[in-house]
Structures are given as structure tokens and as C-alpha cells.
């Protein structure tokens, strides 16, 4: 169970968000640009430190005091694959694990990394880099996965494949997941049970997707959910 109350002052607004996530569940954070979604995720990950509040993952206190990044049992995927360019694909995937094991082999096979395995990470395409990044995160089998628009800039086919992979691995490994995206259709696939909607750093609505579509709490949310 993840429980968090994030308060983080920004120049233009104060992010003040509370959320709870049951073990093995998936929660979407939805909203327009600048709503505070990334800030909430970064504070849970430990990339940023909240000004106040708390973050508790099961029995582990992540904040306060701020638990060092290397002690946080979570995976974090962002828009940038953040692969280590001086290493090969296989070295990137094995980066956070002690040794090459069967699980790494499984990831290599299922994420179609075989042909890239020995390639330098700096020489692969954006879509391939996201797959490698996903494999690297899953290699450690984290109990909590945080996704910050990890499909931005990819073609629809690549996005579909990555979402399928994530859904499959979440069912297999049973990790909890918080996903951030400004595309409702992506979030619905990843987090079918519902989402929290943020505007101006505050929660304006939360619930099942059907509720968000039928009775959006704000004009902006209505606009975000309507077809272009």
C-alpha cells in the first residue's frame, strides 16, 4: 500500500495532492500540461523532495526523512529513456542486478531485445531505447513502478506494444503502478480502474473512467477528454 501527501511549492502554484494505492493496483494521474502530475511522481520517486507531507510505501517511510534513492524499492520510467550511453544494451539491462539470470533472459526474449543485445545504447532508436529502459527497470522486479509519460514521441505501434508489455508484466509480477500521461486513452489502457485528475496542483476529481467521461468536474477536464 502506497500512501502519500505531497506538498511542493512551485513558482506558479503549490502542488498539494494526497493519494492512496493498494498493493498491485494501478492509478492514473491525469491532467493538462503544468497540472503538477510530474511533480507528484518525482516527489514519490525521490527525484525531488517535497516541501511537506509524507510518502509511505508499506512499512517503508520514503519521506520524511528523505530515503536515499538507492534504497527506494521502485522503478521510474520517464519520457527520456535515460540509458547509459557508454554501455551496451545488455549492460544497461543488467545495470541494477548482481548477475545475469534467467529473468534477464526472459526479459530479453519477451521485449525483443535479442538483436540489440550487444549494440551500444547510444546507437539504438527511440522506441528501442524505451524497451531497453523498461527491461532495465523490470530486471529489478520493483514492487512499485512510476511512469512519467514514457511513451511520449513514439509512434502508435510502438506505444501499443509497450503498453501491452507493461500490462502483461504487471499481471505477471503484480507490481503497483502510478502512471502519468496527458492522453486519456493511454492511461485507460494502463490503469483501467480509474484516475486522479489534477489541475493547478490540486485534485479536482478522482474515480472510474466512466465517471470522468460522463461527469467531468471542470471545463478543462471535459476538453481534455473530448476528441480533437
Amino acid at each position, binding site marked *: 500500500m502506497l500512501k502519500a501527501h505531497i506538498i511542493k511549492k512551485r513558482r506558479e502554484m503549490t502542488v498539494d495532492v494526497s493519494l492512496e494505492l493498494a498493493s498491485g493496483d494501478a492509478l492514473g494521474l491525469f491532467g493538462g500540461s503544468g497540472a503538477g502530475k510530474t511533480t507528484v511522481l518525482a516527489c514519490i*520517486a*525521490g*527525484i525531488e523532495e517535497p516541501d511537506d507531507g509524507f510518502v509511505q510505501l508499506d512499512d517503508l517511510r520514503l519521506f520524511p526523512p528523505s530515503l*536515499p*534513492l*538507492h534504497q*527506494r524499492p*521502485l*522503478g*521510474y520510467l*520517464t519520457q*527520456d529513456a*535515460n540509458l*547509459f*550511453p*557508454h554501455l551496451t544494451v545488455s549492460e544497461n539491462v543488467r*545495470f*541494477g542486478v548482481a548477475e545475469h539470470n534467467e529473468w534477464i533472459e526472459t526479459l530479453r526474449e519477451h521485449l525483443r531485445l535479442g538483436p540489440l543485445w550487444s549494440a551500444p545504447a547510444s546507437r539504438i532508436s527511440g522506441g528501442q531505447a524505451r524497451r531497453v529502459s523498461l527491461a*532495465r*527497470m523490470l530486471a*529489478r522486479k520493483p514492487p512499485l513502478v512510476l511512469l512519467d509519460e514514457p511513451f511520449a514521441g513514439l509512434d502508435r505501434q510502438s506505444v501499443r506494444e509497450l503498453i501491452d508489455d507493461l500490462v502483461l508484466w504487471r499481471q505477471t509480477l503484480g507490481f503497483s503502478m502510478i502512471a502519468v500521461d496527458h492522453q486519456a486513452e493511454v492511461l485507460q489502457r494502463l490503469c483501467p480502474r480509474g484516475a486522479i485528475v489534477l489541475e493547478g496542483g490540486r485534485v479536482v476529481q478522482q474515480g472510474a473512467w466512466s465517471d470522468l467521461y460522463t461527469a467531468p468536474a471542470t471545463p478543462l477536464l471535459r476538453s481534455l477528454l473530448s476528441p480533437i
Partner: protein
Amino acid sequence: MNTNRRWMARAGATFFALALLYPLTALFARIGGWQWSDNVRGPGVSSMRVSLLLTGCAMLIILAIGTPMAAYIAHCRTRERLLWQAVLLIPILLPPLALGILLSLAFGPYGAVGAWLERFGIVMTNSAPAFVCTQVYVGMGYYVLGAVAAFDAVPLALQKQAALLGLTPGKVFLRVTLPLSRLGLAVALSIAWVRTFGEFGAVVVTAYYPSGMPVQLWVDLQSFGLPAVMPLLVVFLVVALPLPWLVHVLAQRRSLA
């Protein structure tokens, strides 16, 4: 860039290089036959050994102390970082002769540290330790400031990602920060090498003996005149240039890889 413009740029670069190397034409000046007799060659070869060995020692010290210091400064907040950078600029800023005088007084027998070291038999005037110490002071600022810039160039996101993958700060430094900044570090070290290898003003005050190559050039000039200086100058270039040049060759190969 079209072909004409490229050739114009190349011509400009060639002119620049020729202007930079112009002083070397003095090697062909009419000063009489170059002198490389025993009394010039012996001390010359000895000074080459001194310069290579002791500058190498100084580089190791600079590397060992300067690298963690640079890593620390790179993670400091702006105000603290500016303070450390000002400290590093001071020995660079000082005229070499003035730095030599200050070092000579501070580490000499009447300085607190100098007197203390003498109790252990370490003499800090006209000795190998004095030579190395002076070179460390001369080169440290160049290396650390360059190393800070090299560490700054490593994306913070990669270092945080490595930490989130379970690496302790020390391992993040060894497995991510250091490999990704190694070319910048190598360039910083090569600049420090060039600067210290050619150092004369400070070393001539603190360590006239054992004479390194720059001091020996001065001695030859005083004792035998220009004909004795030229061969040692050529040897100096041949000895001092390969290391920093090799670093740039490696950097070039890396960027083309």
C-alpha cells in the same frame, strides 16, 4: 557549408595555425651551430628525467586529490561552488614568480609547515619534494576547474536513474559519472600537464635544483648562450607534447566512434 566556403575556412585556420607556430621559425635563426656537447647534453638529459618523473608524480597527486574535490564542487550549490572556484583561481591568477616566493616562504624552514616537515627530514627547498609541491600548486587549479566542467556535463538524470537502480553514491560515481566524464577529465589533466611541465617562474624560486627542463633552458642560456638552448628546446617539445596530444587523439576517436 559549400566547397568554396569550406576552403576559405580552411585557409583561415591555416593562417591562424601559422601565426601560432610562427615563433618556432626562430629555431632556424642564424645563431651559429647548435651546441649539444657533453656539458650541455648531460644536464639536459638529466633535466628531462627530472621533469618527466617529478611532473608525473605531481600529476598523480593532482589526480588523486583534485578528482574528489572536483566531484564535491560539482555537487555544491551555486554560492558555495563560487567560493571554491575563487579559491582555485588564486594560484592560477598569481604571477608564477610571486607564487614561487610565497611557496618558498610558506614551505621553507621558517614556515610552519616547512619547519614541521624538516623534523621528518623532508626539505622543501631545492629538493624533489619542493619541485613536486610547486607543480601541484601550479597545476591543481587548472585540473580541478576543468574536472568540475567535465562532471557538470554528465546529465544529472542519468546519475539519479543509476541511484534508483540501486547504486550507492560511490558506485554511481564510479560506474556512471567517471566513465561519462573521462574525456573531459583527460583534457583537464593534459592542460594541467602542459602547464606544470613548462613551469619556470615558480619552480626556479623553490626548486632550482633538481633542475627541470625549463630551469635547465635558463641555465644553458646563461652559461652557453642561444646555441645550447635550441636542441634542448626541441627535446622539450618532443617530450612534453605526446601525452596531451594523445589525449586529444583519443577524444577525437571517441567522438567518431
